[in-house]
Each structure stands twice: as C-alpha cells, then as structure tokens.
C-alpha cells in the first residue's frame, strides 16, 4: 500500500487502529525474508565469535583475526578458498608492479 493510499484512508476517517494494523502487517510481510536473513546472520556471527573465543582461550598468543578468517574459510569449499587466495595474490602482485 502506497503512502498516498494511506493518506486517503486516513482522510476518509477510517478507524486508525485497524488500518495501522493492516499497514504494519503488510510492511512486516515485505520485510520478513530480510529479517529472517538478518536473524540467521546474527546467530552465525554469535556462534563464530564464541568459537574464536574458545580457540583464543586455548591459544592465547593467536591473533583473533587470523582465527576468525580461518573459521570462515573452513565453511567454504576448498576450491573457493584457493580461488580467493589466488585472485587476491595475483591482484596485489599486479598492483605492486
């Protein structure tokens, strides 16, 4: 529902509460997939940082960034890990030239 339609409904003195409920539900329905993704991403990030903390507790000299990046890469297939490494390595070599 567009903003102008909402204004029209309001000007017709439609009960605000019922309209707002419908409007909010429609907005939520649109946002639901994004919200689900965001919630999933937050859960993943929490799990990841818990695992990093656990490893750092066992290896206090380790750099948390290195540990975090390793754990992220381990979730990717080996070929993708190699592709990323080669793309970045070759790009930086060209840049240095």
């Amino acid at each position: 529902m567009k903003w102008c339609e909402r204004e029209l409904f309001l000007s017709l003195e439609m009960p605000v509460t019922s309209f707002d409920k419908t409007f909010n539900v429609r907005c939520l329905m649109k946002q639901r997939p994004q919200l689900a993704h965001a919630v999933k991403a937050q859960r993943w990030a929490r799990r990841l940082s818990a695992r990093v903390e656990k490893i750092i507790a066992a290896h206090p000299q380790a750099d948390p960034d290195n540990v975090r990046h390793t754990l992220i890469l381990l979730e990717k297939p080996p070929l993708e890990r190699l592709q990323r490494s080669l793309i970045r390595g070759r790009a930086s070599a060209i840049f240095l030239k």
Partner: protein
Amino acid sequence: MVVGLSAATLQGAPVVTQDVDLWFENLGESKISRALQEVGAAYVPPSAFNPPMLAGTGAELFDIVVRMDGLGTFAQEIKNCIDVSLGRQKLKVLSLKRILASKLAANRPKDKLTIPVLRDALAATQSVKRRVKKK
C-alpha cells in the same frame, strides 16, 4: 602433491598466493607430459640459470618444486599429506603442520610474514577437527 601457501589455503589458512606449487616425485613421468599437453603447456627442464618450470597459458598458475626447506624427501612427506576433494578429483595436499615447518626452515622475509598466520590457522583447524571428531 600440492605444497606451499596454495596447499595452506586449501586447508583454510587465510593467506594469499600467486601460484600453485606442485611437488612431483618423478618429473619424467609420462602422465605429467600428457596432462600438460591437454592444457597446451609443456615441461621445461632445468638449465644453468633456470629451475625446472612449466610453460604455456594452461600452466601459468603452476610452479614446480623440487625440494622443500626443512622437509624430508617426497616419499617421506607424502605420508604427511591429506586428501582434499576438488569436484570428482582428490588432491594430495601437504599438511598445514609440514607447510609451517618448511616456512620456519626457509625463514625468508616473505615467509616470516606468513608464519604467524599459518600458526593461528593450524590452531583453528585443529580445534575444528577435534570438534568434528567429538560429534
């Protein structure tokens, strides 16, 4: 066998590399020349100033390694390999622990930069392996 930093990346180490280092037991093997022919490349034997190398566009990502600092012979090190699945193929990849040992032995300026990263990656991968075993 895949060695060097490309082998480390296949095992999850967050490092960058420019090529894939390959260590062969016997460079004269017919399978190698057949595979090279298939991608329009060729093996160039060592000369006075050049190490053995691969030439041709199909092989430009690959380098040949004849020995590794701080490591044993090919026959000894193949025992320290892990199998990494790439599609339908299984690659022999030198273990992260042995890659770290070779970087420590070589100790060139570029190795010194990667040693702490490899060490941390080894700690992380070992903890992941322990977690998987527990499950």
